[in-house]
């Protein structure tokens, strides 16, 4: 502890250089925090995906529809607990930038399939009574400042109405909250019965099935059995774990995790050079001072510790400032104004950031620190 003063005093030496180094490190950690939150936003669905849930879709693509009659057939397969269907509605609320997912589903089945959606009994009842009613996530409701009782017009892009109209009107009657921080509360659930009787065509066809299985260990086996059931039929299926399905969905944009990792690696590599350079100069310029410290009795190891301590002080100040700013920025909210169902900086990644700070301090400081350790007093004092 008593050496802390010594360590922090030495940061005052070249204020501009130290300041710039701290600033670079800070920027790197802001990026780290912010990009982590973005990656987290893409991964959120995958992380909360139920291990006991499979998604069954048309073998060719997600756009191809499946018959509603598959539900009973899937439920009869050994190992399947329950199956429920969803369909992509693909409507637009006011303007296309207000994107969010709307899906016709069967209410009772939804409650059963997604225990992570928390809904009051009152709202459940209201929804079951209102055919044109919708259940929306809290996040979505807040995004558009909706309230229960609002009538929400959605312009259809896929599903026209029987009466020839393309504007569907829904009544907001129920809201759900997420049981976990990562739960997607940006969805808009339409009643399938209302949807099916109002749409102009496609009656009896649904987008995909969500299947709950009794034993997650047997997921692969059950998925294979489902695909086998519909093999050689007009609509063959592809069953896969929910996590893989969401991952595939996100990967349509590109391998986000990989892209973000690449950016961060490049940033950290650069910053490491900056910090390493600063530390190398710090030691080189102070050969004489370090020798004096040894002369008055500091051990070789003590001097090594001091240099590493300085490295840690610089990276720590920069890193913590960076993580703090990242946290602030992230808590200011989703930068895409709603495309990320969840946007936050997980505590785990904050810890990871701290570990990164320490690792960075060590890598940047170790070579100069070893040089300082090896310094021969009599030699160094002559310079």
């Amino acid at each position, binding site marked *: 502890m*008593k050496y802390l003063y*010594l360590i922090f*005093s030495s940061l005052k030496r070249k204020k501009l250089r130290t300041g710039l180094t701290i600033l670079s490190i800070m920027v790197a950690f802001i990026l780290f925090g912010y990009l982590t939150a973005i990656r987290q936003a893409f991964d959120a669905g995958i992380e909360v995906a139920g291990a006991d849930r499979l998604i069954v879709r048309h073998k060719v693509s997600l756009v191809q529809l499946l018959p509603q009659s598959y539900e009973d057939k899937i439920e009869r397969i050994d190992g399947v607990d329950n199956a429920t269907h969803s369909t992509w509605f693909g409507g637009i609320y006011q303007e296309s930038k207000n994107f969010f997912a709307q899906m016709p589903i069967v209410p009772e089945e939804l409650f059963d399939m997604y225990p992570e959606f928390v809904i009051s009994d009152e709202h459940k009842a209201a929804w079951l009574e209102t055919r044109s009613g919708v259940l929306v996530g809290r996040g979505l409701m807040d995004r558009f400042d909706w309230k229960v009782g609002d009538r929400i017009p959605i312009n259809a892009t896929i599903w026209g109405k029987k009466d020839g109209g393309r504007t569907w009107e829904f009544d907001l009657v129920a809201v759900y909250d997420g049981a976990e921080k990562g739960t997607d509360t940006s969805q808009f659930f339409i009643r399938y019965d209302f949807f099916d009787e109002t749409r102009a065509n496609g009656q009896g066809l649904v987008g995909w099935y969500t299947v709950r299985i009794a034993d997650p260990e047997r997921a692969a086996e059950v998925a294979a059995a489902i695909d086998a059931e519909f093999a050689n039929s007009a609509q063959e299926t592809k069953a896969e774990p929910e996590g893989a399905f969401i991952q595939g969905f996100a990967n349509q944009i590109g391998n986000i995790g990989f892209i973000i990792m690449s950016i961060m690696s490049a940033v950290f590599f650069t910053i490491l050079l900056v910090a390493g350079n600063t530390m190398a100069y710090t030691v080189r310029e102070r050969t004489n001072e370090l020798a004096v410290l*040894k002369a*008055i*009795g*500091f*051990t070789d190891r003590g001097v090594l510790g001091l240099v590493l301590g300085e490295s840690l002080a610089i990276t720590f100040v920069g890193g913590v400032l960076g993580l703090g700013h990242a946290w602030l920025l992230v808590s200011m909210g989703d930068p895409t104004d709603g495309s990320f169902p969840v946007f936050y900086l997980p505590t785990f990644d904050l810890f990871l950031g701290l570990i990164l700070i320490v690792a960075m301090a060590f890598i940047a400081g170790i070579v100069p620190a070893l040089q300082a350790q090896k310094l*021969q007093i009599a030699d160094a004092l002559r310079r």
Partner: protein
Amino acid sequence: MNDSHLVKVSGVDKVFKRGSEEVHVLGGLDLEIPNGDFLALMGPSGSGKSTLLNLIGGLDRPSEGKVEVGGKRIDKLSDRKLAGWRARHVGLVFQFYNLMPVLNAQKNVELPLLLTKLSKAERKKRAALALDIVGLSHRTGHYPRQLSGGEQQRTGIARAIVTDPTLLLCDEPTGDLDRKSGDEILDLLQALNKEQGKTIIMVTHDIHAAARAKRTLHLNKGQLSTEAVD
């Protein structure tokens, strides 16, 4: 063996290697310094005065021979033990003061005390006392760049005596100072020798400075003598 001999250097050789070339600086050098001595060490530039001082202060090791201080073979100590030994027994004063520019006088003087088990309050008290002894109580908060050369050197001396070492090693302590400041430093060293019984070895090029010591030795061609050789 005389117990009152604080420093005993016997048969010391010091050879430096410069590439493939060997430089013999000290050859079979003997030196005994009694407790309470004030020795001035003179000699031409490059004769090895600093080298000898370094050996006695445990900053370097002889190529051959023994260096005993307070009855201890310091040339045999491990690097780690030697560092601890220096911290406890030696005070160093340099020509260019070698203060830490980022620490004020008080903190500079406290530096050697960081290596002790003393409490923060105790460290502060002792540093203040050392600064008082060198007559700098009014400059404790000043940084080296805010002090005159003489004041910096007095801070250097305060740092050297703060751990109350038996041995003070000064390498041209007045070499960078004007006559007046130099004299003040020499007064101080003399007082430390007389009043506090510090044993002092002072390297100097200045005959006036050497005259303040109890005795003077001249180093030439690796050997010591009481007479200057030209």
